[in-house]
């Protein structure tokens, strides 16, 4: 792998870190990395140790863990907030990363968390919506 390919793969990874709550599929990420979808997953894993799909799930679970620790948002709200489409896929991914259910994870922290209101935390922890990103892209002069 040379610096040029590494830069393309890193940009795809950055896109996941930045836009984890958006619907991200491997095809779109591969396009971002300027590689064929067929090679993309393998090359991404060689570079970062996880497939792009796994990386998306891990990133979403990491964000969900922070919201579970620090907000009073419900598990369902958090599931949707970090980009999962269903509670089933959220629970499966969460258990794989954290080794327990979201509810059990939250219970671990009950008692020593100065919980902040979820509506307030959500304002700060959610990434910018696609509308603002598009607006940004459309106005490069400002």
């Amino acid at each position, binding site marked *: 792998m040379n*610096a040029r390919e590494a830069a393309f793969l890193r940009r795809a990874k950055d896109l996941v*870190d930045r836009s984890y709550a958006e619907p991200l599929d491997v095809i779109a990420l591969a396009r971002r990395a300027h590689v064929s979808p067929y090679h993309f997953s393998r090359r991404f894993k060689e570079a*970062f140790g996880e497939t792009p799909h796994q990386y998306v799930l891990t990133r979403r679970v990491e964000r969900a863990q*922070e919201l579970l620790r620090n907000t009073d948002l419900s598990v369902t709200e958090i599931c949707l907030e970090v980009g999962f489409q269903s509670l089933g896929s959220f629970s499966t991914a969460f258990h794989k990363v954290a080794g327990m259910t979201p509810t059990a994870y939250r219970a671990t922290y009950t008692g020593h968390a100065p919980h902040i209101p979820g509506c307030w*935390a959500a304002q*700060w922890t959610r990434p*910018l919506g696609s509308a603002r990103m598009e607006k940004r892209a459309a106005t*490069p002069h*400002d």
Partner: protein
Amino acid sequence: MKIPIIALRVLDQQRALDFYTQVLGFTVTEDMDLGAMRWLTVSPPGAPDQHVLLERVGPPIVDPETAETIDTLIAKGVGGSLFLEVDDLHATFDEVVAKGAEVVQEPMERFYGIDAAIRDDSGNQIRMTQRVETGIQAPPSAVNG
């Protein structure tokens, strides 16, 4: 003791100079052609005694193959990092993004303040933090360890 200079390896010194001065508003503090190397340092606004050496690594310090490996790591985003403390994170973030910085993380409240992350033109991560009380709990590893 203090740290007057830290070295950050970059893929291209001229492009890095453009990024640090035009996007981040740094000032060039030293730019000298020393023959085999270009000694290029920049300082953040308001801190002229803090220098980042924008360093290009290659022969004769390392062989071409090692230089290529280092460049690949930089481009992959694991070459180096810079942590900046800012007064108004949201304002600074909006400004650097408008000037074309690649975003890694939008502004978020963390247990240590508000922060955001961007990349420099080489792929080095630049983490910007505004130190404010957020009331957010530190993760268990930070509390216990």
